[in-house]
């Protein structure tokens, strides 16, 4: 079917769409760039959550955590989102990875708001001098 279509027409059609295609790619670039840093990535995730794009926010947080696996707030928000998506088992798994990390009360309140009663990861140990 395609082989019989005039290639010139097809190519022109494709060319006409390239600006839109480039814009779509630019959007993806922007999403990827935003999550290279924790702060800008968190801001993106919160905007996506506000827009009810929970999977998009989950993807953004996953990118942050790939680049910054030690970051605590993104993992807490990730766990919260899993709860909101009804994946409590996954959320508990994520929270378990935060043992020994300093977790702020406001951040934890966000987790409890999404997950309800859930075990708070153990606080960090004091280092011996």
């Amino acid at each position, binding site marked *: 079917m395609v082989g019989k*279509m005039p290639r010139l027409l*097809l190519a022109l*059609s494709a060319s006409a*769409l390239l600006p839109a295609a480039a814009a779509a790619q630019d959007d993806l670039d922007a999403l990827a760039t935003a999550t290279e840093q924790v702060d800008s990535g968190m801001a993106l995730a919160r905007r996506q959550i506000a827009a009810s794009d929970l999977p998009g926010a989950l993807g953004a947080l996953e990118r942050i955590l790939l680049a910054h696996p030690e970051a605590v707030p993104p993992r807490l928000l990730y766990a919260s989102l899993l709860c909101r998506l009804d994946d409590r088992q996954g959320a508990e*798994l994520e929270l378990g990875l935060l043992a020994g990390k300093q977790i702020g009360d406001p951040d934890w309140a966000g987790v409890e708001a999404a997950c309800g009663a859930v075990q708070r990861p*153990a606080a*960090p140990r004091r280092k011996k001098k």
Partner: protein
Amino acid sequence: MSGRAFRTAGRSAAALAAMSMAASPVLAQASAVGVNAAIRNKVEIRSGRQVRPAVLRARVILNDEVRTGPASQLQILLLDRTTFTVGANARVAVDRFVYDPAANSRSTSVSVTKGAFRFMSGRNLRKPAGSVQVRTPVATIGIRGTIFEGVVGEDALRIARAEPAVGKKVKAKKEEASLIVLRGPGPQTQGDVSRGAIDVTAGGQAVTIDGPGLAVFVPRQGAAPIGPFRLSAAGLQALQALLRTTAEPGGGGGKKSNKTRNTLLGVAGGVAAIGGASILGGKKKKRTPQQQPTQQPQKPR
């Protein structure tokens, strides 16, 4: 590219672009289906006979193959905002990608021949339109707006055999055994997101999974899916170990562990594109700290 996909794509200008990309080898080479949105450790892209390290934000080009090494991950963002995360030691191929945003229609097919993966449907997750599939050597997974994970190969067999619903004596082929688990959204999902589901077809039988944590295992070609069963916490942890974003035990990792590699030729792609990308992987299984119990977390070293 199949004639069927062409028919699927044939009603809009965007789809026409997709058709033209397929009609013209040059355009097809230039079309992109997404970008490398995050890379961790060793990820390589094979394009024809060339293998190059992957590069952040580079375009995912049609028919490319991507390989991940041990403790390595790649997150691909597709044009329809679907997120496809490839875990360690994996090999994946995007067979088809047709997206018409005007009609909110898409047709996507991804093949996973080895390793772990996570699939998160893109925007309008609650209104999926078109066919979205992930294929393993032994099963086809039809996706209805959802988040799910899977693993193909030895790791699938290892994890599944520890599950009571499968057992150690299951007759399986380690190269192709496939374990698939739905993560959500579940029935108690909050907000404006609908419940997700997947249909796993293997050995002439189809099994629907519509609850988070439910899994099926397909041990070999021609075998019917075993399940659905609830994946144990240990099983989920083991799967997560292949996909996880964690640092090394005791707080290693971080930026120092992230080696951004270079590759993937990037060219501006179509709003609609038809694509293939692959992700291949090595054999060494390095476990990251998902061995930790969830209820009684370990202290860091």
